[in-house]
């Protein structure tokens, strides 16, 4: 099942704008390798889940996958063949707002070659440009 918050303050949110680069969540923290976004965008909960499944099928039993983003923004839409007006549509799905530089996933306990293959499978699911990064030296 796709990720979504347990409790929210408001059911619907405004669209907003993605400005600037990521200043937090842009480092590999838990694992040895990470998948970093090179573009900003919205990543749907279903996409995050698809990426998790694709990666877990590869690293199963060997490595550990960390998901660093969470879909906390509700996106609403109007039903088909509905006239304009009559208020904002109902929430349809959830997205994670991603800025350029955000680390989306991390991998631990795998070799660099394995991480490369795993992230290539994962990157194919992503709607934005991504690249593999290593942990920054201390």
């Amino acid at each position, binding site marked *: *099942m796709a990720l*979504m*918050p*347990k*409790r*929210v*303050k*408001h*059911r619907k949110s405004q669209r907003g704008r993605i400005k600037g*680069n*990521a*200043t937090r969540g*842009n*480092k590999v923290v838990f694992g*040895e390798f990470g998948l*970093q976004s*090179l573009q900003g965008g919205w990543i749907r909960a279903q996409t995050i889940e698809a990426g998790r*499944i694709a990666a*877990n*099928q590869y690293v*199963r*039993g*060997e490595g*550990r996958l960390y998901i660093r983003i969470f879909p906390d923004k509700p996106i609403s839409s109007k039903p088909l063949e509905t006239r304009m007006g009559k208020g904002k549509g109902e*929430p349809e799905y959830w997205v994670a707002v991603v800025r*350029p*530089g955000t680390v989306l996933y991390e991998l*631990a*306990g795998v070799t660099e070659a394995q991480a490369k293959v795993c992230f290539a499978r994962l990157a194919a699911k992503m709607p934005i440009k991504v690249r593999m*990064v290593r*942990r*920054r*030296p*201390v």
Partner: protein
Amino acid sequence: MIETLEVVKREAQGSWNVGKLRATGYVPAILYGHGEENICLSIRKEAVAALIKHGSKLVSLTGSIKDTALLREVQWDTFGSNVIHLDLARVSQSETVEVTLPVQLHGEIAAAGGGQLRFATHEITIRCPAASIPDHLTVEIAGLQLGASIHVSEVKLPAGATPVTLGSVVVVQVVAPAGSSDDAAAVAVEPELIRKEKADAAAKA
């Protein structure tokens, strides 16, 4: 290990000037500490890359300034590709300093247990004499059985060093492999509204 770094005294200050400096292949840096005045420096990009690659913390400055310094902080750009600034703190070889060092694992865990290695702490902060700062801390994991763990207090430190990170913090442990988590779990279709009860109470009143 002490490394030599050639530095040039920098007059240009401010983000615009520093940006121009970076475009010419230099990295801005600052030298401070010991109650002396702060000195702005610039260092060749290649020299900084080599210093970070080698993992040295203690540097011997040559060129415009002749001093010994500790690499206190490295600032990276958003994507972690380029170093944008260095903080250097004046230090004498006999002084005791606090440094954060990377942990390197050595050996292979016991395969008989079928466990999975969980590397929990990648960096440990220690206090040690500046002259004996190692590039990294090595943790021996050879023969580690399923369920076993190594704590910060068990890590072999250089002579005269004491850990600043809590001794009870787990560095590495061998855990049972996680089972398949591809199954769809039943969860609520819509999240609970935090203000719902409040709104209902107001409506009743």
